[in-house]
Each structure stands twice: as structure tokens, then as C-alpha cells.
């Protein structure tokens, strides 16, 4: 459980970090909180030549509310966002999910953007990004570009981030006050990775629901207001579409069952809640 040798770079500015990334490309990895990456390094699932530590870069420490979204810099930890006083008003879903992201101790170093970049299929922040149709801001020495949630996570633990690019921020839309939000997950222990996680919000004419922990990437779907029976059918179809595998934690069948059951509870919760 010791990492392979790597060189360690501590740039002082974002430009320095991008320059290094330009130079080393796929041989470098960006290190922010390290709560996923350091574990992967220790298990030698990743063996980069250089780690570029961006955790303290001053350019990446801000949470800023713009007119229709909140932008979270790549240095902002999960604990910092949780403690941001405007969070509940800005995006209640994040208030609901953050206590489930890792543990007290890992949230104090783990970053919001790092969790998105790691893109574990059962982690909560990618699920929230998919449900809310957020965006990720990528930068390289050459350019800055913004990628929609649906294009960001391309396959199992794989993202659209290029070799010379890094995530510098992510954006979640500011919640419309009339929307109701719901979230629930099943884990072996509070704070562990979800076996199945479901998030949903009401829409003008129905519900938008997303599931994590089943398919390789979190999947979201929109439904109009459905009758009780149609909702059950729709959830069943959705559960089968997600696929899902047997693993040490649960069978694919159990996962589908959770999608049907929790999906139903959460969908009804957000549809029926008084505005």
C-alpha cells in the first residue's frame, strides 16, 4: 500500500500549474484533496510521474453565485461548500447530498471538483451534476472550455478532460424556488459509496430523476406527471435500461429493485410536496 515513486510539484499560480500540465501531459496527475487519488496511488491503480498539487492555489478557492448558477473552484472542499451560508437557498440538493459524501474527515480535504473528476459511478456529486444539468469548466494552457454534465462523464470513471487540461471549476444551477428536491441512498455504512443513490426534483409538468451506483455513469430521466401504475412501469423500464452488475456489495437484481423502490418514494415525495 505504498505508491510508486512520483515527483511532486507545488505551483504558486494557476498559470504555473497549466504550464506543468502542458509539459507533462498524460504523465502528470492533478492532486487537490487527494481523497480518491491518493488511495489510487497507494494501491498503484495510478502511477503518474508527476503530481501537481493545486489544493492551495488562490485562484481556485472561491464559491461565487452568479445570476443563474453557483460556480465552485477546484480548491473548494466538500466541508467548505457545506458550511457556505447561502447553500440551502442556492441549491438545496447539495445541502441534502453533502452529508453523504465520504466522512467528516475526508470532506475536510476532499474537493467538489475532485469528486467530479474522479467520477466514481456511485458517488453523489456526479449524480447531482447529472440531475441538475450542471457544467464543468476545463482549462489548459491553450484554452478554457465548458462541458455540460451529460458530456463530461464519458464512461466508467472516465471523463472528457484532455491530457493537458484540468478542472478549474464546476457550476450548479441556482434552484428555482418552486422546485422540490429529494435524495436517498442505500449504503453499507453511512458515508460509504452508494449501492444505489437516487436524486430527483419536480419539474413544471412532472419529475426529473437520476440514479447512481447502477450504470457506469449516473443516468437522468424526465417524466411527465404519471399515474401510479405508469410511474411503476416507467421506473421498471429505467431500472432495466441502467444495466448494472453483480459485485461484492449487491447483485444487479437488488440494485434494480432499489431503483424501483427508492425511485418511487423519491418521485412521489417531490411531486406531492407542497410548493
Amino acid at each position: 500500500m505504498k505508491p510508486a515513486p512520483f515527483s511532486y510539484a507545488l505551483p504558486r499560480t494557476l498559470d504555473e500549474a497549466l504550464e506543468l500540465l502542458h509539459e507533462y501531459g498524460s504523465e502528470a496527475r492533478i492532486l487537490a484533496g487527494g481523497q480518491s487519488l491518493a488511495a489510487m496511488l497507494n494501491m498503484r491503480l495510478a502511477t503518474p510521474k508527476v503530481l501537481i498539487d493545486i489544493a492551495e492555489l488562490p485562484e481556485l478557492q472561491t464559491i461565487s453565485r452568479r445570476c443563474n448558477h453557483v460556480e465552485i473552484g477546484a480548491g473548494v472542499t466538500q466541508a467548505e461548500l457545506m458550511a457556505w451560508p447561502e447553500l440551502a437557498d442556492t441549491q438545496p440538493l447539495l445541502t441534502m447530498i453533502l452529508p453523504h459524501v465520504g466522512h467528516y474527515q475526508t470532506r475536510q480535504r476532499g474537493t467538489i471538483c475532485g469528486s467530479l473528476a474522479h467520477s466514481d459511478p456511485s458517488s453523489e456529486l456526479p449524480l447531482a451534476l447529472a440531475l441538475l444539468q450542471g457544467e464543468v469548466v476545463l482549462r489548459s494552457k491553450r484554452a478554457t472550455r465548458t462541458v455540460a454534465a451529460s458530456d463530461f462523464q464519458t464512461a466508467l470513471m472516465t471523463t472528457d478532460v484532455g491530457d493537458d487540461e484540468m478542472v478549474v471549476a464546476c457550476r450548479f444551477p441556482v434552484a428555482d424556488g418552486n422546485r422540490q428536491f429529494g435524495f436517498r441512498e442505500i449504503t453499507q455504512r453511512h458515508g460509504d459509496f452508494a449501492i444505489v443513490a437516487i436524486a430527483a426534483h419536480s419539474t413544471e409538468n412532472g419529475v426529473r430523476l437520476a440514479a447512481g451506483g447502477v450504470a457506469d455513469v449516473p443516468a437522468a430521466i424526465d417524466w411527465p406527471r404519471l399515474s401510479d401504475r405508469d410511474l411503476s412501469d416507467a421506473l421498471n423500464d429505467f431500472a432495466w435500461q441502467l444495466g448494472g452488475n453483480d459485485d461484492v456489495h449487491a447483485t444487479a437484481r437488488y440494485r434494480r429493485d432499489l431503483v424501483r423502490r427508492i425511485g418511487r418514494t423519491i418521485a412521489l415525495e417531490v411531486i406531492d410536496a407542497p410548493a
Partner: protein
Amino acid sequence: MRLLDADSRHTIRFQLNGKAVEGVAAPRMLATDFLREALGATGTHAGCEHGVCGACTIRLDGKAVRACLLYAVQLEGRNVQTVEGLAGHDEELSAMQTAFRKHHALQCGFCTPGILMSLSQLLEEEPGADEARIRDCLSGHICRCTGYHGIVAAALEVFEAHRRSGGESGRERTDV
């Protein structure tokens, strides 16, 4: 910019339990191994070495974090507190350590240093924490011996005493 070469060992200077210390380490050395092997501070335990068990928890600039997910080079210039820093100069146990002893909150003691570091932050920052919050904080630690009840009982006693005594006094804040 600091660029530390993979194959060399580098001098790292930081504050450990209020004292300036230094040691040498290659970039890949875990903070746990550095504390234990380079500095002889073996109070911090290494269990899983991938962030799951909590045995290695230390306080980095006040925050309880996993030392096995940190590298020695990242401690440069920081303030680190480990279990060795909890007892007073006279080796008198802190209130939390005393309560752990009283409530049989440890058996083998492997998980204990990490748990004490997490609870010390929680007590400083959230003295009003209730049992649910204390359990939430403890969920980041695995204890294979006690079944957690003694740990929760010890923590509850200290949090309550801390509240009754008015909490915020300077001595209390560092005494945990």
C-alpha cells in the same frame, strides 16, 4: 514553484504538536510513515492506508484528516497535531482520554489515536454536537473491538461537561 524530484529525499519542516521539527522524505512517502519512521511519532497508527479505517487521522491546521492520504512533502510549513499532543506537559490525560479510560472506549487501542483527533476537532468547533452528530463523526473510523458504545458514552460525557462548564475557555479548548 517547488518541484521535488521523485528519486531524491527532501527536507520537510513543520510544526508538530507545537514544536518545530524537520525530517527528510522522498515525495512518495506517506505522512503516516514519515511521522512514525522519520520522526518516531508512533502514536499515529497506519491501518488500511487507503483512507477507509481512520486509524491514521491527524489534525492538519486544525482539521482532522487522513494522514495516509497525505504525503510527507505536503506537511511543509503546516501545523500538525497528533495524539502525542493531547496530554498535558505533565503527561496528564486530556478530558477525552480520561473519559475513554473510564468508559472502556478502547481495548486494543489501534483505532483510538485517530478517533481522539476527530473528536478533538468536533469538540472545539461544535461543542453543542448531539449523539447523532458524534456518531456521524465516528462513522469515519473503524473500531474492531469496542462496538462503539463506550466511545459514544465517553464522548457524550465530555461534550456535556464541556457545555456545562461554559465551553469556550482557553484551557478547555486545548485540553481535549
